[in-house]
């Protein structure tokens, strides 16, 4: 390394050639992915080259080398983690959906409906949310039209009572 720092190309070449398999082992042990490890070997060799002036000859060379290799590894892992998550534009859409008033209202309605008995919940859902007519709802649920009307009426009354209870 010292000869390399002085600009001796032959010993520099020897040094890099010796470091390459060492670095390959270092990255392979930590990544287990041959292609990524080889990329990092090359990146680290370039960094060693670009930053060789930062080596202080009074300090151990291996500490310097490993600090650079570790830095490149962390850098790589950080980039890989970002890539694994959603692209930014899509993530924005996900949050926007969550934030809208409609989404919040929908969630509240579902919470309230969940407290109704099964039969009444189905009636309210059909007539008020899916928008079916009383006759259609009656056909689907097998009740008479007036039965549907009464059921929906009671369900809505129960719902408004729940809301009232919460407010109080």
């Amino acid at each position, binding site marked *: 390394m010292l000869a390399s720092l002085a600009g001796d190309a032959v010993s520099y070449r020897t040094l890099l050639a010796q470091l390459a398999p060492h670095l390959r082992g270092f990255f392979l042990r930590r990544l287990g992915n041959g292609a990524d490890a080889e990329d990092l070997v090359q990146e680290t060799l370039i960094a060693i080259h670009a930053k060789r002036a930062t080596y202080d000859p009074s300090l151990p060379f291996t500490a310097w*080398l490993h600090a650079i290799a570790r830095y490149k590894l962390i850098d790589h892992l950080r980039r890989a983690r970002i890539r694994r998550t959603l692209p930014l534009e899509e993530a924005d859409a996900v949050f926007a959906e969550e934030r809208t008033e409609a989404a919040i209202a929908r969630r509240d309605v579902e919470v309230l409906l969940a407290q109704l008995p099964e039969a009444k919940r189905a009636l309210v859902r059909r007539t008020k949310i899916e928008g079916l007519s009383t006759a259609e709802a009656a056909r689907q649920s097998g009740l008479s039209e007036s039965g549907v009307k009464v059921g929906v009426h009671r369900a809505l009354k129960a719902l408004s009572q729940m809301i009232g209870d919460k407010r109080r």
Partner: protein
Amino acid sequence: MKTDALIDRLAEGVEPAGMQALRRRLLNGLGAGAAAAFVLMLVLLGVRHDLPQAAGTAIYWSKILYPLLFAVIGFAMLLRLARPGADARLPMALEIVPVAAISAFAWMQWASAPEAEHYALLMGRTWLVCPWLIVLLAVPVFAGTFWGLRGFAPTRPGLAGFAAGLFAGAVSASIYALHCNEGGAPFVALWYSLGIVIVGLAGALAGRLLLRW
């Protein structure tokens, strides 16, 4: 590209590493920054008028020496953080020494003063501007230090930036002490330190952005 080919390319026509040049660049950067801060202090604030009388007092010297010692140790810390694999823990621990010294002096002054003077000892007359003037004077030192750090290879850019900020803040504070005519050690311990820490935090943020490689 094959790794072997890369090695050939890198080794081809390799030049001496220029370790001296790297170091000189940092010294030039912070030297120019400190000089600019000094001129800024002269022009913008002016040296305190009672300098001859003040030069005989302990508080005058402690105001200069506390940040100066902090800066010297901070520089050692910075040099280590700027190089991969160098251990910065010793200078980091040593930074406690100037802080402990000024705190001890502050406590002594505090304890021996009547209670009616406590407020003045801590807040002085300029507590509102003191930290911010230190931040202002630190700007050129900060810029010069960061410029000088380019080419180094901090493996923890945030921490190295923090050290660079503390260093710039401390240099600035010792220059500011030539203008400042506060006489309370508790004032120095609190407000000087606050100014230094503000610059340090700015450095931590800037380091994460500017010192990556």
